[in-house]
């Protein structure tokens, strides 16, 4: 559907004022700062500023507590938020203003992009400490698996970033306790997490068990193939299945 450029420009400007507190402050001082045409600037000037601030605050709180995007950031990313070193609402307000948040898509009529993934990606841009980045990755994967434990048919693609992989009866992820891990890289201090029989599990496991888990995925990383034979992997998988982890 074609929408007049003036209407889209108004919509984009309102969204920016709602999501970006710095833009809101600048606009309060200088209504021309958004670079909109005079008619749109006039409409924006007509918005009650305290209502705008209150609504923006409600958006931040709704994103933080999960009522708007489905992920309770405060609960799911508790350690990451601590590492960010600012009060909860301040950190979430910065996230809401970010380009990572602009990718969030949770309505259901288009392929989804979960807030947990956007928050994790944003947090990586804010955190220099390697361990804090690893913790953010673990919290993100745990949040994703929590959804997968109750949702067979999610609106987003869980495998999109390569961390969470489908196995015949559930999902697994292998991470590193101390550093952010990319798919394919062998963890030095492995942590495994997963969903089996509708339940989440997770913790430190020996690397050969993690390798066996990854051998059950569609395209296992090379290190897993080299570390554990198919026969040994099948034996381990049988044990994990008996424990209802797969």
């Amino acid at each position, binding site marked *: *559907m*074609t*929408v*007049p450029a*003036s*209407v*889209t420009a*108004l*919509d984009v400007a*309102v*969204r920016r004022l*709602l999501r970006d507190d710095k833009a809101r402050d600048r606009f309060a001082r200088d209504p021309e700062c958004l670079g909109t045409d005079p008619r749109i600037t006039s*409409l*924006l000037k*007509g*918005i*009650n500023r305290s*209502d*705008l601030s*209150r*609504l923006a605050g*409600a*958006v931040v*709180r*709704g*994103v933080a507590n999960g*009522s*708007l*995007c*489905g992920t309770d950031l405060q609960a799911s990313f508790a350690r990451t938020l601590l590492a960010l070193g600012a009060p909860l609402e301040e950190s979430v307000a910065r996230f809401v203003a970010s380009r990572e948040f*602009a990718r*969030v*898509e*949770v*309505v*259901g*009529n*288009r392929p*989804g*992009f*979960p807030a947990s993934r956007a928050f994790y990606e944003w947090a990586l841009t804010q955190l220099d400490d390697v361990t804090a980045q690893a913790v953010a990755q673990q919290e993100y994967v745990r949040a994703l698996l929590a*959804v997968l434990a*109750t*949702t067979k*048919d*999610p*609106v*987003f693609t869980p495998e999109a970033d390569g961390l969470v992989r489908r196995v015949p009866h559930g999902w697994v992820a292998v991470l590193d306790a101390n550093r952010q891990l990319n798919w394919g890289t062998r963890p030095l201090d492995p942590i495994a997490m997963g969903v089996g029989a509708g339940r989440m599990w997770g913790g430190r496991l020996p690397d050969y068990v993690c390798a066996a888990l990854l051998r059950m995925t569609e395209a296992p990383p090379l290190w897993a193939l080299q570390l554990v034979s198919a026969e040994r992997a099948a034996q381990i998988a049988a044990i994990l299945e008996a424990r209802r982890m797969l």
Partner: protein
Amino acid sequence: MTQIDARIRRPVTAGMGLGVGMDLPWGAPVGFDPSTNRISGRVSRYLRREVETFAYLFFAFQPRGSFALDPANYVEAYRSLRALLPDELPWALHHTILNLGSVEADYDRAPIIEFTNALIAEFDFAWIVEDIGIWSMAGVPMPYPQPPYFTADALDVVVRNVTETRRGLDVPLHIEFPGVTDKVTIVVGDLDAYDYFRRLADRADAWVTIDVGHLLGWRWLTGHRGSGLYGALDRLPLERCRELHLSGCGISRGRFLDLHHGVLMDEQLDLTELLLERCPNLVGVTYEDPRYHDSGLLVEKARPNVDRLRNLVAAWAR
């Protein structure tokens, strides 16, 4: 208008009477229970007590967490609700993701319409209703649906949204007058909401629903008080009005609040009385979001004006 009427699958006649409307989020005490995939016990107890006193019911669609928009993810729970209703009781669906007030060019309603029509086929909803509002912005829901942009060029876009959606749905679409509750909405644009709504309904040739609290909220916001709250009704598309909604409202610290707390204000009932006289095609009046105890008993504070509403509607429906 007669063309739309002919498409009503379950015939709805004028003067059905008082209906009940409920928002039923997943995981809330008043809602659907995701662990059992059924309606919650509290709602069941309320309906067992009260449903016989209502002429119809609607409930509000709420997305089920991160589940895909697939009827299979909803059917079992909705069946558990339907099972509590008398067989002949008409029901409708209050939508929340048609997002009719949005002006986003890429907001794709086709999968939502397909999903809705599948639910209509399964459950025989008599109509679909949604407030004209911006329910989500760039993929993220708003804390409260925002009124549409009250400008002439944005109205053109919303007319198209409504027209296309109305044509796509297998039952009538009722567009609801937007809410402007203080504290969580912003108003953008210089058209009066009454004029905007009439122009929209006429140009999109749509049936409308009037939320009485939303009218009062708009009049309050634009500075009217006392009898002025009931003014300018002739600027509304009253001949297109099929349904009135009344949900609990209040005034606090000089602000009009659309609280949905079950307690109706006297002003809502006074305005309802005026509207009942002036809406020739009305089919029902909905008491929306009743507040009740875990036992299913309506809270004491709500009872006087709910009784008054029942009497008003009974007199009108006779």
